[in-house]
């Protein structure tokens, strides 16, 4: 079945990733991690996100409210996700465990809902 792995880390980590000296080693760890999933043949999709450039929108009393930045109160920002195919939750949790974000922030795992056949 399919699972989505959502990577969340504190803003400092994303800032560090943009640093020409400190960034590359950190990003290399991500590359290795993604390669491992690719080689395992389980990767079904995914994206990196501009974690520091999020905007949130909310409708209150019919009026649109736009806010810069993801949610001032949450420390860990959404930096990317992948969809993987894994036979069990345990397997998906293992891939989540390997993610660099699990050391610096955390990784959420959700089963992807199976859509009824048409």
């Amino acid at each position, binding site marked *: 079945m399919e699972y989505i792995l959502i990577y969340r880390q504190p803003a400092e980590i994303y800032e560090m990733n943009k640093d020409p000296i400190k960034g590359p080693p950190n990003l290399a760890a991500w590359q290795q991690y993604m390669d491992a999933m690719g080689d395992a043949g389980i990767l079904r999709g995914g994206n990196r996100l501009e974690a520091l450039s999020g905007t949130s929108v909310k409708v209150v009393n019919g009026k649109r409210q736009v806010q810069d930045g993801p949610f001032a109160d949450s420390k860990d920002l959404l930096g990317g996700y992948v969809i993987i195919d894994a*036979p069990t*939750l345990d397997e*998906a949790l293992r891939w989540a465990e390997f993610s660099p974000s699990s050391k610096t922030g955390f990784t959420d795992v959700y*089963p992807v*809902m199976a859509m009824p056949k048409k």
Partner: protein
Amino acid sequence: MAARQSYGKLLAWLSWQWRNVGAAEDALSEAFASALKHWPRDGVPVSPEAWLLTAARRNLLMAARRQRLEDDPRVLMLLPDLTAEPVDMQTIPDERLRLLFVCAHPAIDSSVHTALMLQLVLGIDAARIANAFLLSPAALSKRLTRAKAKIRDAGIPFSEPEPGELGTRIGAVLEALYGAYTVNDSTILDVEADDLADEALFLAQLMSEQIEGDAEVYGLYALLLYCESRRRARFDEAGTFVPLDEQAHSLWRNDFIHKAEFNLSRAAKLKQVGPYQIEAAIQAAHMQGVLDQNTPWREIAMLYEQLLFLGPTVGAKIGHAIAVARATENPAQGMELLDAIQTSGVAGHQPWWAARASLLAMMGRKKEAETAYTRAIALTRNEAVQTWLKRKREKLSLSSSNNQN
């Protein structure tokens, strides 16, 4: 037919085949319901379990058809079974252990582990579990439903945990069983804990039979057996709690004690010390003390020290304080230890006040002891314990002077 045996075995097997605990549970309870209707009329079938299993499978198939799942491989797997000869229960593997492991999966809210095990492996209904754990039945049902939906939807595997994770998962199962056994409002093991004690003991036995090489599995089983062996001696005819050192050991169950000893020595051979084994050893020492009319307080104090080293729980700290006071015959030393735990929020903890009261009494500080007993009485809901504490308090005021000590 022992329903307790059958229910879990059948549910575990169906869940394993169907990979959906909730659906298997519905199908099986429907099967039990139709058994209640048919058996009194047509007679009990030769193999009741096989009958139940066939009925449950039919229910699962019908449910699958309603949901248009006919092409699902799981359905196709069940189809030939229905037309085949009646199932031989002997050939059905016991999957209850796997079911226990599923219930204690770390992805499931740990506060619901115990309730899930009791419901899925033993078929105890949510209302009774809620009652024992002092929860609202509606709230518990909601949490159980959510947990079962998660088992189904999140793809929690119906398999044994991997070697690296096995120890942790066994620990989670043991913790849940211990929780079921000591579900009452007190940490004193001698307090009657509804009748979930039987159920916890049964599951602990199941674990000890099916798991090789984990000392704490045998340790927990030994601990529960020691506690259970004294069940009949724990309350007098008036229903008052009788503490271990005042019990009539003729009322203890020797068969349980022997089994406990066997499991504890089986555990010791593995040389993996753990809290359940030490607690069982403490029980054994206390009981031996009653038989010898001489409690080995020094040894007990040492066991508590080991227990504290592994995990400083409030219960262990209190036990340690008492044991030290008795071993050194110096209640002041025990009191110092009791005072030291005051910081961790024990002011609302009945055993702490009861321990304090007994040490104050030992020191001859009667007025303070009385106050401490009064506080302890106010902090327990268990009537048998209340009566016992009241009696201790009365004894105190009856003794006219300090020379009674």
